[in-house]
């Protein structure tokens, strides 16, 4: 039987269309802007609007991730790196645009050619929507026993992908630590000690009392919210990754308002490094326990030895899946929170070194607008 998707009955499609147009407008602005800061702010907006679009497309988990990552972490890291480099890009000569333009147009035409044969947007009978995706919807409650199908697929059916994703964050943290260090320069910056000895460098008026008070209220709330997102991920949108980013952002706010060295005293870089690898260890460790109990890697039904699993679950519960998912989500949170904090330490802690080379800044910043 032929079905056409009830597109007009779905208000989210109207929102989706409007948001897509807005996305395209923002992207156009990014293409033409040369001031890096403007580009970064617009990129932040782009990801926020993309996240809105994800909500309209019924993908709240993706929206959540895109918002915390694209709007929060990426923007801050980009800001940190602009501070360490330069603020505007050189114009591109038109002659250099020819080859990329041809390549891009060719690739675009190829994709459009293929898109013509993809079943229509929103079609419930398309191969993508009708096969494995639908199986997950039908089986999750029976096999994993949690309502959020995305979390179930993420942590259980395709848990190995998620282990890989966690490893990627770990590898990125290792890479940034290799390249930029652990922010140790912020702790040992001689200029800073010099400043303490010369109080006339410090202005008397305290401009930011409002900000500090507000931040003091916000940070505990953010921690609490992060934990809520972590443990709520089985039922609603959210999960270990989003929780990790929120926790990291709480630390980053602290560093932004109270100073990096203050934060690094409370959460030293060595601890972040340990946390990043501990998270992957927890995750892989859960898998190894499953193997020891006779299951496949990451088969949480074997998280507990079979007799214990039966005792815990009862007739059709899924104690193993339940605790397994929580355990690996904690691992993900640990790696992501510490990894992103370590990355931020790297970028922010590099600053004094560059700032002290202020002389080479001058000619570059003149290139703006």
């Amino acid at each position, binding site marked *: 039987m032929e079905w056409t998707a009830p597109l007009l009955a779905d208000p989210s499609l109207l929102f989706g269309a409007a948001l897509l147009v807005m996305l395209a407008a923002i992207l156009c602005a990014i293409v033409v802007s040369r001031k890096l800061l403007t580009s970064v702010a617009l990129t932040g907006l782009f990801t926020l609007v993309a996240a809105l679009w994800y909500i309209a497309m019924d993908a709240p988990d993706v929206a959540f991730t895109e918002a915390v990552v694209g709007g929060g972490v990426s923007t801050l890291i980009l800001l940190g790196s602009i501070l360490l480099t330069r603020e505007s890009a050189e114009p591109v000569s038109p002659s250099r645009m020819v080859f990329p333009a041809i390549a891009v147009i060719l690739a675009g035409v*190829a*994709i459009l*050619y*293929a*898109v013509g*044969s*993809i*079943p229509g947007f929103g079609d419930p009978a*398309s*191969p*993508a*929507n*009708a*096969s*494995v*995706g639908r*199986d997950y919807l039908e*089986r999750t409650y029976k*096999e994993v026993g949690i309502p959020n199908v995305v979390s179930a697929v993420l942590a*259980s*059916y*395709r*848990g*190995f*992908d998620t*282990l*890989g*994703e966690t*490893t*990627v964050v*770990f*590898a*990125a943290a*290792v*890479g*940034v*630590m*290799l*390249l930029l260090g652990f922010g140790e320069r912020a702790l040992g910056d001689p200029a800073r000690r010099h400043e303490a000895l010369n109080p006339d460098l410090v202005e008397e008026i305290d401009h930011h009392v409002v900000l500090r008070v507000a931040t003091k209220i916000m940070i505990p709330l953010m921690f609490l919210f992060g934990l809520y997102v972590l443990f709520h991920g089985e039922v609603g949108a959210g999960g270990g990754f989003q929780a990790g980013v929120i926790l990291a952002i709480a630390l980053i706010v602290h560093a932004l308002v109270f100073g990096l060295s203050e934060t690094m005293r409370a959460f030293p870089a060595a601890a972040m*490094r*340990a946390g*990043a*690898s*501990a998270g*992957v*260890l927890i995750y*892989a*460790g859960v*898998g*190894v326990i499953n*193997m020891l109990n*006779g*299951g*496949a*890697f*990451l*088969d*949480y*039904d*074997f998280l507990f030895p079979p007799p214990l699993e039966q005792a815990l679950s009862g007739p059709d519960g899924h104690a193993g899946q339940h605790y397994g998912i929580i355990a690996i989500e904690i691992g993900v949170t640990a790696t992501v929170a510490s990894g992103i904090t370590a990355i931020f330490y790297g970028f922010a802690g590099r600053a004094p070194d560059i700032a002290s080379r202020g002389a080479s800044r001058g000619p570059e910043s003149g290139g703006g607008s």
Partner: protein
Amino acid sequence: MIGLEFLNIAPQRFAEQAPALVVVGPLIAACAAVLAPGRRWAWFLCVGASAFAFWMAVVLASEVARQGVISYAMGGFPAPLGIEFRVDALSAMFALLISGMAVLTAVFSGESLETEIMSSKHPLMQGGFLTCLAGLLGLVLTGDAFNAFVFLEISSIGVYAMIAMGGARDRRAYPAAFNYLIMGTIGATFYLIGVGFLYAATGTLNMADIAARIPTLTSDRSIEVGLAFILIGLALKAAVFPLHQWLPAAYSHAPSMIVVFLSATATKASVYLIIRYLSTVFAFDWQVETAFMAFVLAPLSVAGILICSMQAAVDPEIRRILAYSSVAQVGYMTLAIATATSAGVSAALFHLFNHGVMKAALFMAIGGAAIHLKSQRLSDFAGAAKSAPWTMTAFGIAALSLLGAPLTAGFLSKLRLIQSLVAADWGWAAAVIGLSSLIGVFYVGRIFEVVFFRSEPEGGSAVREAPVSILLPLWLLAIANIWFGIDATIPLGLAESAAGAVMGATTLSPAGAP
């Protein structure tokens, strides 16, 4: 099958878990290495984990030889739902090559890092190396198209940073690493888009499942374009001409440990995926694909072979000569694959294996001899054979093998390449290989002239004999080059059974079936 079956002493339950353990072992060790209190600990972990991975790879290979394709369901969920590790002879061969090289590189890394990277960062380097190893092993074992993307990224992200760490000696490493990152990520994203098209058309991500569903489709436009995107993405990662520009710069400025490992494995893993897609997923019997092989892949390979050989012949920096030669050698492999015959694929795999062995030896020798030498210029190696006879003899053996001199592994693999091309009626392609070998004589001759016949510069050469921990893996590789040139049963057996595995059946049976 490989002469190492005696290592297959694992209890049966352990052997069943080998597909997961081969990846998870290095992964856990990577985390532990980052936490290691000192560089010695990190090094031990690194060697231990690589050896463990190698052992597991041997177990896997002998299991595959015994019982055919092994399917391992991650998380206990059967294939289209869960992620499947699907090990056939091809994957087993690559797993052996990668983990074997990792062991040698790990041994080599101890002394080599000592001089190149400040010691507080050694644990991070070892951790990054092990992550990369886990990523490459996962890449060749997985049977899931998206999972392959994740492993592609795992194996690259740490590497970008580690290549940039060569910047302490030569600042050109930074832009080189950056270019590699851009190109690698574009490649990975192209791959991702291509997988998206396959998913849109078939509704599944499991490679065997995709292969089974493709014949049932009415329209294959999205499959065609998906394949194109996947191949372009992987060609970027595998440095197939003309998408190779990132490779020479990245290889010539990275820390030697990374170069040794990457030259033997990283582009090879992408070649693996190319073979996997062409043969298993698309089964070599599809019209667009054959046209692509004959009219795109083959001409590009030929151009790559000739142009990069010439570039190698004129470049003044020794590592870059070898890097350009690597691109040319990738061209040999893709050329043989483009014939789409069993003999061609087997010759390509045989050459790939041998090339890994010789390139690793060459870069290892340079890394070992030039520990105190900041420059990479060929002229600075004048008379190196006198100041570092052991290292440079091994280097010479591997260089002869690269050239294809008789009694070395390179000779046999070039012979088989030419045979397979002639058998496929591609005589002109065989002539191209001959021509490029002639150019090879020129650049290897240049290196020989400098290293062996020129006298040392005044004040003595900065080249020193490599320490024992480097000579050991180096000579193992050099001997392997000769051994495989005389008795090629091991690599040939691997390559033929691998080629048989992918070329024998036109399509894989969907997962679950034996």
